[in-house]
């Protein structure tokens, strides 16, 4: 490695740290916004979040320059790119399209955990690609796979968990509709007539089929969360399908067969079947809502296995050890 490349690698690591700390700060800010509903807190958190994103992008670009190739050639790089795309997808989809601010902390928590695991357990210095990965298909297959994964992580993970939590709460409230004294939060007593939780005019989407007369809780209504999760997953599904197909084309070139039930192939197929099942389940009576959400969550679990279990633990061609 030339001194120039070493310096770039160091810059990349520093920017990574800046991004990680910015995400942590923004995550705390988003949670504070959930608790206290101060617009200023949200504005500040969002600014820190954008700063983190910019720094993260810088880290990824510097990493690519240091290695002299695309910056997604090993587990560490996949993980950091995944975290970046999850945060970006959150900003674009949840805040941009759905106009919801309540879920930033949860999306950032996923990104922070992913980055922490990457930095702690998966870090390797920038280096050239092993021959098995050295193909232009790495640009197509891997980008599609990470993009699909990040959208699944957001839709099938973060948004679905939020939906299930909110749905459970709404069910509970429907079961006991009598006015109930809310437990005090952090020692403060609350005015039950006007719970300071969900405020419709903060730009949050309003629920359309929320039967409970009193909107409560800090999350958007479950029907809205359900829509957000569904549309994110429906966006991710064709991308994931494409990633699997592109991977098969690459495998045909590299290994002489387009499908060989290699562990990575198998698990990406499992993830695909689960989300295909999710999309069908939503169109089937009796499977909508909670059951479909559980399927999406299982898909998220399968995605995590595809990423974090298959590569290091199950020997296969995707272990990237060379021959």
């Amino acid at each position, binding site marked *: 490695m030339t001194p120039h490349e070493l310096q770039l690698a160091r810059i990349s690591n520093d920017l990574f740290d800046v991004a990680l700390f910015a995400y942590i700060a923004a995550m705390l800010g988003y949670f504070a916004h959930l608790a206290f509903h101060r617009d200023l807190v949200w504005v500040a958190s969002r600014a820190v979040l954008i700063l983190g994103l910019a720094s993260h992008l810088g880290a990824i670009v510097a990493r690519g320059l240091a290695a002299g190739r695309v910056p997604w050639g090993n587990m560490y790089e996949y993980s950091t790119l995944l975290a970046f795309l999850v945060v970006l997808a959150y900003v674009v989809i949840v805040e941009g399209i759905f106009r919801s601010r309540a879920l930033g902390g949860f999306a950032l928590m996923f990104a922070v955990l992913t980055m922490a695991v990457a930095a702690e357990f998966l870090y390797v210095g920038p280096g*050239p690609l092993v*021959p098995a990965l050295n193909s232009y298909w790495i640009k197509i297959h891997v980008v599609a796979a990470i993009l699909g994964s990040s959208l699944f992580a957001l839709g099938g993970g973060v948004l679905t968990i939020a939906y299930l939590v909110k749905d459970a709460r709404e069910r509970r409230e429907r079961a006991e509709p009598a006015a109930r004294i809310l437990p005090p939060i952090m020692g403060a007593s609350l005015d039950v007539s006007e719970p300071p939780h969900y405020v419709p005019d903060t730009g949050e989407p309003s629920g359309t089929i929320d039967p409970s007369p009193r909107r409560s809780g800090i999350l958007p209504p479950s029907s809205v969360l359900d829509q957000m999760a569904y549309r994110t997953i429906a966006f991710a599904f064709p991308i994931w399908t494409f990633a699997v197909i592109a991977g*098969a084309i690459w495998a045909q070139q590299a290994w002489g*067969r387009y499908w060989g*039930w290699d562990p990575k192939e198998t698990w990406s197929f499992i993830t695909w079947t689960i989300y295909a099942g999710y999309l069908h389940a939503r169109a*089937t009576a009796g499977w909508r809502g909670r059951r479909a959400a559980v399927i999406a969550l299982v898909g998220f679990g399968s995605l995590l296995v595809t990423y974090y279990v298959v590569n290091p633990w199950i020997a296969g061609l995707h272990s990237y050890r060379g*021959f």
Partner: protein
Amino acid sequence: MRTALILLFLLGAGSVVGSLVPQIPNSPDRVARFQVDHPILGDFYRHAGFFDVFGSWWFILIATLLFLSLVMCLLPRTRAALRSIRQPPIQAREIDAFPQYAERTVTAAPELAIDSSERVLRRRMFRVRRSEGALAAEKGSLREIGSLLFHWSFLLLLAGVIYGKGTGFTGRAAVVEGQTWTDGAANYDGTIREGRFFSGRFTGVGVHLVSFEDTYRTTGVPMDFVSHVQLLNPDGSSAGFADLRVNHPAEIDGLRIFQYGFGWAPVVQVSRGAQVIFSGPVAFGQDQPPPGVPQLALPWNGVVKAPFIGAGLGIQLTLWPDSGAYVQFRTTGQPVPMTRAIHPIMFFTSWRGPLVDPSPRFLDTSVLQRWTSGAVGEGRTCDLATGACWRAGSRRAGARELTISFPSIRQYSVLQVSRDAGVPIVLVAAILVLVGVLPALYSSRRKVWVRAEPNGKGTTLRVGGFALQRKPQFEDEFSKLVDELRRASEEIRVS
């Protein structure tokens, strides 16, 4: 659909088993080791087909049922879709009962208002049916067509897979530098997997391995593996040269040839006196490394068999391509990857007795008697009986003396050779899957009705509509559509 869904999940669950239990087609060594380590569980797995999930009867049964259920779903849906495409949209009786409804008063006469509304709807890609003073319009049948295309494509995919795998084969061939391999039934070292309908005809084309190069960075990370080969037609004439790399296969006569692996092939010569009993390169293999040890730090193992010496003579050989690495491993216990041959050294153990195992790679020592052992370096010759060694050619062996020589070391390249005529079909099917999934997920079916009824001053334009999917977006689209319909009718008066 529920049956298909459950079958799909069962297929996924079966795949989980297939990814956790070692699979015979992917890693036969690990299956064998598993059966030794866990005899009872191994027996159960074997009977349940867990060692070859994706070829097991129950996996194929689930897949078959899934496709069957898919077809049963698709046939009526396809028939209905074809009918609804041919059928013009149907007029509705009470259009003010639809979720979206609006009335606008325009000055144009009813007939003209309907004219202009029809034009607007057609411009917006609606299919329109017109009757007296009323329009029925529909859009978004692409959703169903896309969904049907998506699902039918899986049947095409299946057909491509079955055709390609059924009539094709895949196998591996080890070719030593300087040698030529010919595509023929006997030349795949038992690694060939033929499809059920494989014709059994091999092409007879040849691959001559000119040289193999494996290069590494100073860190030991592999940089490149390349086989420089000459491709030969069945009659032996040259069909050109090619560099086989990972990700860069070559193709000849419908065969695709891929760089798959490599190894060391020391040239071994066993002689009795001046009579050469065995001579030639022997392809050596490696064991699975223990965790944390790089594969290339392990020594390489090979066998030489001489069945006609006495009751039989078998020699087990262990090669250290880099004797420095061997010394370092012996003194420090540190495994060192051996990426190049530097003063290679081979340890031998010879056995006497009947050679019952016909495999060229393994020696069944249970019925043999251990005879002698020693080490031979490159360019040296050793007496098998005494272990005494000398530089090759510096001494002449006695007439009955058994000797082993190690004149030189070469590399071999493992090529994966396959024929799969179904690949283009599979590719087309995969593309159709993608083409179908986009409208199936993102387009929505919308229906709109327009009536124009005369009132005192002009016309009341009544518009009703609903969407089967993406209802919130339709509200927006509907209000814009109503505005446009009104404006279109107003413009008639102006012109």
